[in-house]
């Protein structure tokens, strides 16, 4: 035994469980998305619409008040093509992760773009949400599987350059 290699490291498994509760605004968003609707929330001070709905406008530091429904349709403002595997990713590589400005929203929504080659994705491309089968819907963003090209003409850079 004493001839064995000296100990250089130890392994300590750790596991902590936390119970997360969706707050009021988050819960409303999740409830709406479980019915196929995307809920935003408007700031009473700067009048910008946040999607997903959030309780507080970070710019103004005030509670948002007015719920606003937005469509699952928008413009890719910028994106990256992910070609690197990672422990937390279970998607086929490569995939496109994009900032998508949904129509009527003032902040891009994070989404994946599929049903086309990664090389076809471009800034300004119009996309629409592809929903999972209705019977599988739950209170989760996973109801939107990804976005796909909608076929509408591209939007000029000038029109979305504030929303990268």
């Amino acid at each position: 035994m004493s001839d064995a290699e000296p100990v250089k490291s130890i392994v300590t498994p750790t596991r902590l469980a936390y119970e997360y509760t969706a707050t009021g605004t988050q819960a409303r968003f999740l409830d709406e998305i479980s019915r196929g609707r995307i809920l935003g929330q408007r700031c009473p001070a700067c009048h910008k619409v946040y999607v997903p709905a959030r309780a507080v406008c970070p710019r103004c530091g005030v509670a948002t008040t007015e719920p606003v429904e937005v469509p699952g349709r928008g413009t890719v403002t910028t994106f990256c093509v992910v070609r690197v595997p990672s422990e937390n990713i279970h998607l086929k590589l490569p995939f496109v992760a994009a900032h998508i400005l949904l129509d009527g929203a003032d902040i891009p929504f994070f989404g994946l773009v599929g049903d086309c080659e990664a090389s076809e994705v471009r800034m300004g491309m119009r996309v629409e949400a592809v929903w999972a089968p209705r019977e599988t819907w739950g209170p989760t963003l996973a109801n939107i599987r990804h976005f796909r090209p909608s076929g509408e003409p591209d939007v000029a850079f000038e029109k979305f350059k504030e929303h990268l």
Partner: protein
Amino acid sequence: MAENCAVIGVGQTQHDSKRIDVSQVGLVREAALRALEDAELDWKDIDALVIGKAPDLFEGVMMPELFLADALGGAGKPMLRVHTAGSVGGTTAIVAASLVQAGVHERVLTVAYEKQSESNAMWALSIQLPFQQGVVAGAGGYFAPLIRAYIRRANAPEDTGIRVALKDRLNALKNPYAHLKFPGITFEQVAQSPMLWDPIRYLETCPSSDGACAMVLGNAKAAKRAPHKSAWVHATAMRTEPTQFAGRDQVNPRAGKDCAKELYAKAGITRPRQDIDCAEIYVPFSWFEPMWMENLGFAPEHEGWKMTYEGATALGGDMPVNMSGGVLSSNPIGASGMLRFAEAANQVRGLAGEHQVEGTRRALGHAYGGGSQYFSMWIVGDQPL
């Protein structure tokens, strides 16, 4: 009111992907002992400790400074622990400097570290939280769309990032402590390295490192007794803005611009590119060099890439940037900001070794973190301001 503060000792560890030869204790002591040795001081000469690191989940110890304080000679002393995301190494140095500037302490030891090999940074940075939109692929997946936006806005040549990476990787060959070294690296090797998060290539990306950095900061009296030349803190500044809000410019964030503006005003700098001799800035992906050149006011908006192109940011250029090889070559996250600040200090001390920029009298240290939202910076000079 404020006392002058000087960097009188600097130390860092060898950075590597896995420093399996040391414990967390051994890692921080390696850097701290080198800083003490540089200042020719002993543990007992230190009045207070300021420790910085990024998320505790990396090492799996909540507030690890509690078990590290006595390993750093901290028993019976004040100890602070700073955490401001990726900028933390810089902010930690600023907090330590403020203890001297306020006249609270004469000599402060500040240490920042990360031992990322104890877990996996990609895991810690991508843990999916219930009810929230996920971060898809760690920092690379987060920042790549912003880089694409920069390229579009500035109409920058696509090989700018490759040029930055090549320069920093060549600089790292002159830095004995650097983690990543590719002797004889060429433009083609960087260009042909795999795309990870298009438009970011493998060799344009920072590594995940184990490492630590330490500095001894002192007042004028302590500096007078120091064996080596001191770097005098001319100005410090920090700025924060929210991660996301409607209309936020994440490519050229206002927090960075405002931070630089305050910093220059305090340091009496009116023409940054002329008044500052070199800069060590936080560039985790090569494209952030031109982005920060604009943000820091070294180049007009949309023209930062020209500095890279013209060779201005190379050793020997008119505004050398990341002489040490930068974050692209060593990235113990919690220490990465302090390494930038320490390199700036060693440049004005004339102790930067092979990557010394001759005649440096004023240097910038810069760090940023979060979603390009936390900034901390300092200007150090070879004389008190």
